[in-house]
């Protein structure tokens, strides 16, 4: 039963107030893209046992989507941040690296 802090309203919301939305930072491929690109965009997931960047919506709160860095093996939450980003903020990445030296990094 997770808790995640919504970066927009600052509420430390519990999971029942949230909606999970899968892997974050997916690049959309539309018409003109290759079969590989499209398959990768829609289906192929990192699904790591470890650090995962993912989407959540504060569904019962402010309604905003946000992103979270979370460990799927321990459920530790490294941080939450705005959905309007193309990749995890540098300071968050540094924080994760400090906590998980073996982490291979984003991407």
């Amino acid at each position, binding site marked *: *039963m*997770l*808790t*995640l802090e919504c970066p927009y309203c600052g509420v430390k919301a*519990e999971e029942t107030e949230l*909606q999970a*939305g899968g892997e974050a930072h997916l690049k*959309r*491929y*539309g*018409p*003109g*893209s290759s*079969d590989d690109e*499209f398959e990768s965009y*829609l289906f192929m997931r990192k699904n790591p046992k470890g650090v995962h960047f993912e*989407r959540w*919506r504060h*569904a019962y709160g402010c*309604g*905003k*989507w946000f992103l979270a860095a979370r*460990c799927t093996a*321990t*459920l*530790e*939450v490294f941080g939450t941040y705005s*959905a*309007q980003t193309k990749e995890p903020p540098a300071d968050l990445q540094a924080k994760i690296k400090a*906590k998980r030296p073996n982490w291979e990094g984003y991407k």
Partner: protein
Amino acid sequence: MSTRLSKGGRLIDRAKPLNFTFNGRRMAGYEGDTLASALLGADQMLVGRSFKYHRPRGIIASGAEEPNALLGLGEGGKFEPNQRATTTELFDGASTTSQNHWPSLEFDVGAINNKLGRFLPGGFYYKTFMFPRFAWKHVFEPVIRQSAGLGKAPTARDEDRYEYAYAFADVVVAGGGIAGLTAALAAAKAGKRVWLMEQTAHWGGRAVVDGVEIDGKPAEAWVNETVEALGKMDNVTLRTRTMASGLFDHGYIMGYERVADHTPGDGRPRHRLWRIRAGHVITATGAIERSLSFAGNDIPGVMLASAVRDYVVNWAVSPGDRTVIVTNNDDAYRTALALLDAGLLVPAVIDARPEATGALPEAVRARGVRVLAGHGIAKVKGGKRVTGVSICVQAGEGAEIESIACDAVAMSGGWSPVVHLWSHCGGKLIWDEERAMFRPDPKRPATGDDGEAMVTAVGSANGFLTPDEVLADAHKAAGGQGKAPAAPAESEAPMMPVWIMPQGAGPDLRMKMWLDPQNDVKVSDVQLAAREGYESVEHTKRYTTLGMATDQGKMSNINGLAILSDALHRPIPETGTTTFRPPYTPISIGAIAGEARGDIFQPLRRTPMHAWHEIHGAHWEPVGLWRRPYCFLRTGEGVHDAVNREIRTVRNSVGLLDASTLGKIIVKGPDAGKFLDMLYTNMMSTLPVGKCRYGLMCSENGFLSDDGVVVRLSEDTWLCHTTTGGADRIHGWMEDWLQCEWWDWKVYTANVTEQYAQVAIAGPNARKLLEKLGGMDLSKEAIPFMEWREGTLGGFRARVHRISFSGELSFEVAVPASEGRAFWDALIAAGEEFGVAPYGTEAMHIMRAEKGFIMIGDETDGTVIPQDLNLQWAISKKKDDYLGKRAQERSHMASPDRWKLVGLETLDGGVIPDGAYAVAEGVNANGQRNMQGRVTSTYYSPTLNKGIAMGLVKHGPDRMGEVLDFPVDNGKVVKARIVDPVFYDKDGEKQNV
């Protein structure tokens, strides 16, 4: 015999006698009794039968670890099976029954299994009952099922109510013994918000029974003072009768409060499930005494030494007149002292250790009791009750040295910390060789959302067994400042692990040593599992059922692990433990459901006209959380007749449909047109203000996901209608794309579904009816088909859309929801002269099918793309992109072999059964009959007086006139011809008048 002592009993109030029954026999106890203490006080030691062998079972313990004393409690809607007598408070009028026997507790036919015991070793059922093949299901399994299963199944609906409550604390302390109280006080003094819960009705735990001295006071006085001090602090919440049942991720701890189990019928909720979010959890859950494995250790009258002490001290109940004590540690001598203090006989203390010279043994010796060091029990004598014990040398093979008559045996195999909460979320254990126990490994705790430890174990839950250590540990762990509460240091001699008594017991004795008395798992069963290669502790558990009883092995699992390790010649820590899973002890399923039952089981969404529908014969259909009228039944009318009548009413005059549930989403902004062009397959940016357009939405995977009419309200504002089930989903979908992909687009959305009541007024007389209300020009010229206007109709603020899902002249009118009911009433009144009638979803479905309109959820099922439904006309060719477009270019989706929408007409005019498939010749590689199509919608059309259907058929549109075979029930085949799906008013003249 067991009996109530004339004096003492710190928890009972002799001024308040209570009556109860056991198997119909009237018995008496006192307020403060548990069911177990009351039964023992009434000399009822035999309380049930075991699971497998139906052996007689007596009370063993005094708390949550009790494996045997499980009773049926209450009657009717208050009956509950498997109530643990040791943790259930007695109340006046309690009606209890013993379980798992037939015809009676005293004489149980099932006990034949006991005689056959040697043929029924652990896992025997995996090796037999295989022939003949049908026999498992029809012969063996029913017999096994009937003999297993413990309590009776309740039959009545639960009469009680339950609830949840949410709480938040910096520190949650589980357990109200001296460790928990100390930790709570320390944390509270540090300014933390503290929540302290205790599973029983009383604070203090074991210390008050054992007569510990704290800070120079009797423990009881110290406990009372501490509780009082905590009670005065605003930052502390105290809760008795509340068990920490489970710890979940991110500090979510569950508290199971038995609010009214002891006061049934007083109107309070029976249980309350606390869902507490803890900054940190301190488990002060104590320790549980272990049994010893000697032959006959399951005979009623053999009890845990600590439990014997509890019964004497707390409830003034003596389990026996002559109690032999058998132990491997000093603590059990306290039981001897308690019994002696109560004036009872202790014929001997059998101590497995080579010598017993500590202060406690000496004190017992000083009272004239024989202490037999280096000895053990070879076997217990008796059947339904202990009659004596046979004494042997612990280091030997069990030859009897002497026999001692007794009617109770108090055993102690040492103590196991209660590590359940510590472990629930991944906290790990270490093996403490000296104390022969698994204790929490402080280096490997469960971690919280910050990656830091979220649990700390204190006191005996942390492996400290003497009060001085317990208090110091709890104080320190909770961040206590200054001096910890202190107890005199006690010098106890080390315990000696004893896993089998006597050490060299042969197979005959090992077959009589119970590890799990409820499930009948014995030492020999665990050894058998090891011999057969079930080496993992999980294998052994599952093969023998060790620890799978309703007590989950609290008392003796460790003994089993030790025996497994011994059999495999490996150290105990290598064997490890099975996984600790919530709940700590069973919690009511009613409490887990909370308040959600009856009317508030789920939200029911109601339109403003819901109440009208209810009193006018609505036959409801659940649609999402809404209920929509399927049809309106008139007196004496069947569903089918009502539907047909409603259709005729619409086709011939005018009908009303409550369409309020349709989703309505405003999309506004400079980029709204661009956004909608991505969302819909159609071009929405070019829709002129004042007009409506039917639109399709696909998932990014290409499948059709929703449809509806889009209305252009103004230059930068559109109103998107969705299906009833789609409103929230589509709104969320829009926001998802706007927030996460196209966040630089200037678009705002608002879900205004519930702002409006919406009514479809459909039928040739629709215009006439509305014109009676007055206020707007509704002529074809003023508001042409597929356009909308805003105005006032009969005094109602209305947005009127000329759209039709029935194929008739139709207006969909939206008014503010608060005025919806009044508007509906006005329509009914104005329509009276036309014979207006409301119609339901089924009439709507049939009329749209007559028109060949698709329905999301009927023609689509998540695997259908718009092209399958010949909806190419609604897919803009001018757009480079829309959600789902790339997906639809994939090879399988672009294949000409996809099944496509057609109309279907049976040759005999009948109705094709719903869901039927059209077969093709031959079978596929897996031997399945080839198929070439299926029915998606099928109805009897009262308008056309015949069956009509739509379906998806391979190459369907190219095969007009072909006849397909639809095999249906009982080998029958329905033949149907492929036809145009538009059955009624093909040119659309009726809707456009």
